């Protein structure tokens, strides 16, 4: 299964991490056969969706500051069209979980996630959001946000540098590009 439709400007597909996951994902999605017409429309829709990811920043600590650096002039997330950070979950497509999740916060992040409109994605930024990171042994820390909500992309680092976050966002764009929006198996 080749990944021909998931080109990202700037990085050749072969140099991306974790291509196997996408290949398996495509296989799974295409198990019921591909409708050619829908496929073409899907391609256009996915182009639009993948290039217009409006994030909701669920920043709790250090990684939030790195996100601010990502949005600022030196790195400029606007180049990807993602500078429209929506503070209202209803209007956001992607939740960037940047920071430690603790027991007291867990119900709230679940609630915000539930308030988001479909299709929605979650990106776990930094060691804390992925696994609990430095505080993995603590009594009050949730060991990874994937215990609360499903996570699409993991961006490791403590905190990850802006380029790492961009890389993670491009990975997410790739994932969106292989999905079938009109088919019923989107997520």
């Amino acid at each position, binding site marked *: 299964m080749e990944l021909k439709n998931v080109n990202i*400007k700037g990085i050749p597909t072969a140099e991306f991490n974790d291509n196997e996951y996408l290949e398996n994902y495509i296989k799974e999605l295409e198990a019921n056969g591909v409708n050619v017409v829908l496929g073409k429309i899907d391609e*256009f*829709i996915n*182009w*639009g*969706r993948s*290039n*217009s990811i409006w994030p909701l920043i669920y920043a709790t600590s250090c990684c939030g500051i790195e996100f601010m650096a990502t949005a*600022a*002039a030196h790195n*400029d997330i*606007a*180049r*990807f*069209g993602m*500078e*429209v950070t*929506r*503070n*209202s979950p*209803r*209007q956001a*497509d992607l939740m960037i979980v940047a920071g430690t999740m603790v027991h007291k916060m867990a119900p709230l992040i679940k609630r915000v996630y539930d*308030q988001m*409109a*479909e*299709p929605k994605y979650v990106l776990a930024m930094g060691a804390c959001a992925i696994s609990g990171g430095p505080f993995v042994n603590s009594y009050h820390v949730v060991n990874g946000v994937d215990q609360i909500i499903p996570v699409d992309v993991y961006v490791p680092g403590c905190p990850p540098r802006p380029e790492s976050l961009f890389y993670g966002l491009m990975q997410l764009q790739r994932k969106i590009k292989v999905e079938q*929006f009109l088919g019923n198996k989107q997520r």
Partner: protein
Amino acid sequence: MILNYSQPLEVTNLTSWLDAALRSSLPEFWVLLIEFVLVGVAFLAAYAVIALILIYAERKITAFFQARFGPNRVGKWGLLQSVADMVKILLKEIVKINRSDRFLFFAAPFFMIVASMATFGAIAFGKGLHAIDFNIGVLYVTAVSSLGIIGVLLAGWSSNNKYSMIGAMRSGAQFVSYELSAGFALMTIVVLAGTMQFSTMIEGQRYCWNLFNGHISSLIAFIIYLISGHAETNRGPFDLPEAESELTAGYHTEYSGLQFGFYYLAEYLNMFIIASIATAVFLGGYMPIQVKGWVAFNGIMEYIPSYIWFFGKTAVLIFLSLWVRWSFPRLRIDQLLNLEWKYLLPINLVNIVLMVILVLSGLTLTDLLPGWF
């Protein structure tokens, strides 16, 4: 004759030719119906296209003010960015809110759109590109464009969200106040021009824009109109109803998908409408720059089609608005009202009297220097 050789790029001839052609073959009723539909479709298309262009322009210009590049990965120079955004917004789920007033919640965005669409009808985009040419065009525009506020208030009320509520109430106070100044500023020019009809007003500015004609008084009216128009569109430094850093997303916090898209578009369209009214009233609308006596120069200027002039002047005003938007911090609600009631309104009242004196005593530029203007 479809083409006019002196102004080959004008579309006036095309529209009048189309009208004549239809009338020659169809009864009156059908002609009107077809023309209505055509105009409606054209406006909807223009509406969407203008909004998309403005969104792109704002994001790009903002970026340049902020020492960065802005969208540049979708299409050449990021030109398709707002198209991608629209595709996404159209497909986004519309969330149903528990314990909200369903009907009002659903209706609110349409008020927003209807208000700006209705205003569109009275704007002269170019020679002959003018859906309705009222004799009270200025009055109509001020009246209709203020319908939009109902959309904001309803959105805030029906969302069952405290942030939305505060945003909507702020918006109400703000709109009512600033509508006053905007109206007065326009009336100042109506005194000068002696008409409320846009086409007459624009024709009257052939050699001398209203901005220069009433010199001091016009300039003050122009600045006040820009400020209050800017405030009416709820854009920074007057973006209190949204106030990202205070109220998360203000009155449209609970809206998602297409409904939010309506608000998002309407914001830009309102900005366009304010700029285009200012263009028509102060900057001579679609009239090219003309100087009395310079026949060759006037000929060249006339050669540029009128809609280019219109959009060019509007673009300058929109740029000005963006420049202000991205330079200043936000006002507080009491400062906002202070600015209106303590500064703009008194100045405006004095100004309108001043204008009357100027006109009556023949101190306008056209009266002073009739050979020049």
